[in-house]
């Protein structure tokens, strides 16, 4: 069984935000919700690196563990999905997520959060809605995974720095790159998300 992961090669990322735009467009993400974002470390200084970050679909996802209504769950492929029907908008998944992936539309009184929204690996919702249906799209966004396709962000990456796919395959691609070019700032987030980095 494939274990789906994301890997952003920070040494190739040019902060073009194509991944951000692709995700927004493909999933019709409402204004204010940022499923994917690009963060630039040491901006303007030598050694500046940009990293594209969304939900990492962690092993032992802390968001799933902490959810009071257990609405977050991993699939067989390691994709972490959640049910917007069960979500009560308490915000705990955001406190637990090391990557700030869960997003909430501000919907009501005080800091009241609406249903949590996050990167779904373009795998739809996994809920009672028919895969690829209009209802599923309205709630969770596109279901490319059901058609055997990879997430739009990785497909649209202009420099192929954002890799998505089976963890072993993309780790292998990254290792070959680092060996060929002689440098690599590492697989950002892998230790925290999957409990293992990539040793080159």
């Amino acid at each position, binding site marked *: 069984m494939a274990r789906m992961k994301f890997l952003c090669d920070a040494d190739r990322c040019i902060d073009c935000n194509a991944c951000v735009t692709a995700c927004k467009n493909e999933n019709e993400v409402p204004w204010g919700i940022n499923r994917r974002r690009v963060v630039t470390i*040491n901006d303007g*200084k*030598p*050694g500046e690196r940009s990293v594209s*970050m969304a939900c990492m679909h962690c092993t032992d996802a802390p968001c799933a563990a902490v959810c009071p*209504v257990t609405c977050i769950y991993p699939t067989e492929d390691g994709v972490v999905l959640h049910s917007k*029907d069960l979500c*009560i908008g308490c915000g705990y998944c955001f406190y*637990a997520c090391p990557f700030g992936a869960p997003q909430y539309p501000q919907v009501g009184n005080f800091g009241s959060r609406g249903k949590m929204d996050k990167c779904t690996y373009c795998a739809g919702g996994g809920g009672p809605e028919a895969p690829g249906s209009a209802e599923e799209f309205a709630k969770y966004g596109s279901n490319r995974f059901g058609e055997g396709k990879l997430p739009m962000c990785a497909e649209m990456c202009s420099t192929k720095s954002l890799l998505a796919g089976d963890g072993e395959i993309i780790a292998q691609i990254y290792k070959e790159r680092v060996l060929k070019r002689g440098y690599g700032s590492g697989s950002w987030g892998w230790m925290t998300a999957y409990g293992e980095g990539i040793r080159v």
Partner: protein
Amino acid sequence: MTFPVRIRLLVVAVALLLIAAAVPTQAEKLGPDGAPNPTASVVDEQTLLKQAPRIEGRIDILDPKASVLIEPAGRTWEYFHEVLLHRASAIVILGTITILGLAYLIMGQIRIAGGRSGKKILRFKAFERFAHWLTAVSFVALALTGLNITFGKTLLLPLIGPDAFARVSQAAKYVHDFTGFSFAVGLVLIIVIFFRDNLFERVDLDWIKQGGGFIKNKHAPAGRFNFGEKLVYWLSVAAGVAVSVSGFLLLFPFYGVDIVGMQLAQVVHAVVAVLFVALILAHIYIGTIGMEGAFEAMGTGEVDLNWAKEHHDLWLAQQLANEDRWEQPSATAAE
């Protein structure tokens, strides 16, 4: 904020200040020709995490929360909430219920030794009772809905299924959010109304020396409130303020605090709330089944004269002296 939490906050703050000075000189590495070498100057994830507990950068999004790239403390907080809090809360709450159960089985209800006199004296006026019950009812609602967040999925979800449980939890969330305000109002009233009578006096020392009357089974001297009650008051004030402040931070997320602040607020809120629940369980016990003649003080406002003589002798003497000054012929209060 508890002491270790405060220390951790201080350490994090100092660490963050230190990076501000450290990073520029550390990041830049020079090449053999003296010019900066960009590739060598790259800082990787592990180095950055050693410098500071989280990695932040520059973003194009307006939301400042998005600038945090990785904060591994999220997993630590999750461990606290799912493991430590679960176990500690279960021990504290079940332990308290067990101890109270044992106390009832061993001591039984503390009875009025002289039997009821049939005569009553006013102990709590209507407004005082209102303040107490406003706070008390709010507290019970908050406790139940708050415990649902931690224990609901373990205890309630298997009984009613995920859909019904999600709907109950959604309603519980709104109840918790809004009842927090009535609790805060009631808390302020209680702090103000009962402040003077809860200041510690010399008679409290005597009460403590006699073990509150529990040791020799002889009633110890007390004013309007004995030392035990004063402890409940001050602990409730401290816990109530802590839980209200942290609760408001949680109600208005990220208003002036960042992710660390929010995680801290939740930790304080949860820990204090659980201890508060244990305290109030003991308070409810002694005020209802634990002691004969206690509940009517808050229920109707009037207590039996013998009860007052045995448990709050100094207060009773003062009340009767006041009435004598007003030249009232009977021992019962005006209303």
